[in-house]
């Protein structure tokens, strides 16, 4: 499994996710520059968090037009793995690789803090090693993370078992006050229908180092190793 992380101008979680992936996979991770067209034969592409191109228009709206994204879209359409974290998730919805959209948080403010999420299915690569019904503490850091989809789309996402994570409390229960950004049905992460493209707002790479006192996110990266390259 060869991982590659796309670096857009304004990406700022690229190094964080590269470091975790290199530690987990024990292999070098490819840096994929936004102006390039070469995916360097990576099997698994990660779009990291940050503010691609400044995100001045709408988060992810410009990044989707970058040269590298044309290759990422092609890779995904061929069944290749792609995962977007935070800004990466926003870019994937803008690029049409994931359904729905990420809107401004209901509080209208950027929020950075620890939250809990629970996996809604373990039949997706990133949740394979997680336990259903268990809460994982993973931080969020975003201003536009409120997941939204129209009723039909939402129904389809649920019918196809594409909901990857929901926000919850430390006991894995969902309540109004556990929905940190106002996402529809507390959705924190989803996959596409093909189950090869994943997006999540929380940052598992920020919960994967014993020095930081939280290892709940590491399992998500370790789960990725179970993939059989396409």
């Amino acid at each position: 499994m060869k991982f590659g992380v796309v670096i857009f101008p304004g990406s700022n979680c690229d190094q964080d996710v590269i470091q975790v992936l290199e530690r987990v996979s024990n292999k070098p991770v490819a840096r994929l520059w936004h102006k390039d067209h070469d995916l360097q034969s990576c099997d698994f592409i990660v779009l990291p968090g940050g503010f691609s191109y400044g995100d001045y228009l709408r988060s992810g709206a410009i990044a989707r037009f970058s040269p590298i994204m044309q290759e990422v879209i092609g890779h995904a359409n061929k069944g290749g793995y792609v995962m977007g974290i935070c800004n990466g998730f926003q870019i994937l919805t803008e690029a049409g690789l994931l359904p729905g959209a990420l809107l401004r948080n209901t509080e209208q403010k950027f929020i950075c803090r620890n939250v809990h999420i629970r996996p809604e299915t373990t039949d997706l690569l990133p949740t394979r090693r997680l336990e259903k019904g268990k809460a994982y503490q993973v931080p969020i850091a975003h201003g536009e993370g409120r997941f939204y989809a129209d009723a039909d789309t939402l129904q389809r996402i649920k019918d196809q078992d594409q909901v990857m994570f929901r926000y919850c409390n430390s006991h894995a229960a969902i309540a109004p006050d556990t929905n940190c950004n106002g996402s529809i049905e507390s959705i924190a992460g989803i996959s596409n229908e093909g189950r090869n493209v994943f997006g999540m707002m929380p940052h598992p790479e920020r919960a994967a180092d014993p020095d930081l006192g939280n290892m709940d996110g590491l399992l998500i990266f370790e789960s990725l190793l179970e993939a059989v390259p396409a």
Partner: protein
Amino acid sequence: MRFNKKATGVEQQLTTVETAKKLGLLPEEFEKIKNILGRTPNFTELSIFSVMWSEHCSYKNSIVWLKTLPKKSARMLAEAGEENAGLVDIGGGLACSFKIESHNHPSAIEPYQGAATGVGGINRDIFTMGARPIAQLNSLRFGNIQNDKTKRLLKGVVKGIGDYGNAFGIPTVGGELYFDECYNVNPLVNAFSAGIVEVGKTASAIAEGVGNPVFIVGSATGKDGIHGATFASEDITEASAEKLPSVQVGDPFQEKLLLEATLEVLESGCVVGMQDMGAAGITCSTSEMSAKGESGMEVWLDKVPTRQKDMVPFEILLSESQERMLIVVHKGQEDKIKAICDKWDLYCAQIGEVTDTKRLKYYMHGELVADVPAEDLVLGGGAPVYHREYREPAYFKEAQQFSIDQVTEPKGLEEYRKIAEFLASHPNICSRRWVYHQYDSMVGTATMTTNRPSDAAIVKVKGSDKAISITVDCNSRYVNANPEEGCAIAVAEAARNIVCSGGEPVAITNCLNFGNPYVPEVYWQFVGAIKGMKKACEKFETPVTGGNVSFYNQSSDEGPVFPTPTIGMLGILENKELATTLAFQNAGDLIYLVGAAQNDINSSEYLYSYHGVKLSPSPAFDLETEYQVQDATKHLIREKLVQSVHDISDGGLYIALLESAMPQNLGFDIQTDSTFRKDAYLFGESQSRIVISVAPAQQAAFESALKGQNTAFTLLGTVTTGECRIDNEAFQNTVEIKKLYDTALEKLMN
């Protein structure tokens, strides 16, 4: 103002003393300029002098005293005033560059952009040194939180810091927030940044080598922020809103690109020297770099990429447009810098070259528009140096009259509960989460204090076993009560926070926020603060690496702000395993008070806000005792004899206990000491006291380690599962008081 936009020649539009006064210069300064030039300056030249000789750039009213501060230590790689920021050797071939700076006046007028560009500016100071920023702090002071204006300013400032810092991608890991009426008109916004660089890979702000090309890199130059440095050197008045063009506009995306490009350009080996453009823009960077290199520069202003058409020379020279860098490159290596800037889609234009004339010659379309000697513009060169008059203000003696006996001791449990709730929900003490949840505090995956809170923010230095510990501190109420003692306390508190976090204090940066220096009573506060800082920095061996001076923090109607010398301190954890949390860990652990209690409520939040006594001396403090308490604490941490360590500051012992209890929803059961007034024991803010929790199995080892340390200590009680008990009475429940503490600020803001 008589100024013909068409005529730009040196011999034209000569100035008068009236023009000089409008630009903020004194008549004698105008005379001095005429002597330096041997002629009357034109408007462009006078503008150059006015910004370079403003307090902001020249430190003319403060440098005499700043020079008395200690600035040497074995770790110091760049001393105060030598470079854009201090540089400290942290061992293992690494150095830390750190600095604090104010953006008070812009934030008073336009809080969002004022604060945002403050963050941008301080980070540029760090990466101009070649260091990659890894953490930011900020220190904020506002007026009465009940005022709508205060709320508007606070919301704007926090959003500005958040939007800029979050997009730039460097975590904001801590800070201070303080409210007092004295900041109603003039809030204080101080931003701190720290970065890491390999020793020997730093850049210097120097221009040398005749013929070497001078490049401007980053954003295009616009009309924003013209005369910003002069603006920062005046009192705030009603007319200040008319100075809106003096406030710059920030673009964190450009800053992020500039950071990456700058570090790559430096790595490529083509750089002779570089300096970011902050106050006074191209004027300041070209003159300071030339003066440092004892060289000169020819600058072609028409080559500067501009945002607006028809910008005239003085506008280009004085523009404080953000996200720009001046880089002198080795001749023949121009292609390297151009290729890197092209990669990052940044403007990159050669705007001049280094000369040996020691003069700055600015040209517009081939015509010389200003010709000034570099050395005469800068601090340490020809910039004026003043010894200001100072005088003890009347309030100082009055404050010394206060005695604790003038305050009736509270009677009974109910009143103590009321005071405890008052303090826990007081805007100066309650949780700051409304603020810090808006900041990305975790990007970079190095913040060790997210899940293990500590008295100072701890950030690991990746690629090493080390971590840095950083804090900003100043209780300006203490400094107002007694500038010398209060400022010594600010340094001591910063050091105490570093020590409690497991670090070794190594150096400070300061942000000296004061009123108008021409008012003798204000200058007395400044002088006192410097004296206090000096003695404390000498004691803790934490030299001053730099910072900034912000005078004129006052409004003409309401007088000066409290003297506020904010201390930003850097500490080192040789091994990140020394990181120590303030949070109680286990019910049943023993709680100790290290340091001696005092019968003292001077200048406490309790006295000031609950009893409304506005004038009293600064809290009890003895530098030698403080040093010993800190030394003992360091020893206990190194010997791994502690479960948690938290210093006692605002709100006293009670608040310290509560802060240690809340993270894990634990409580405490303690006994007070009847030889002291109970209110002084619980809420007094006498210094040099630390709350430490210890596992019962380590009690004997802990006590015997302390007995060898010449430091007073008391066993207060034990950690409980969630009840707070004082003197065998149920006082409060942690979960309930935590709700009050956590939500107090957001209730006020929403």
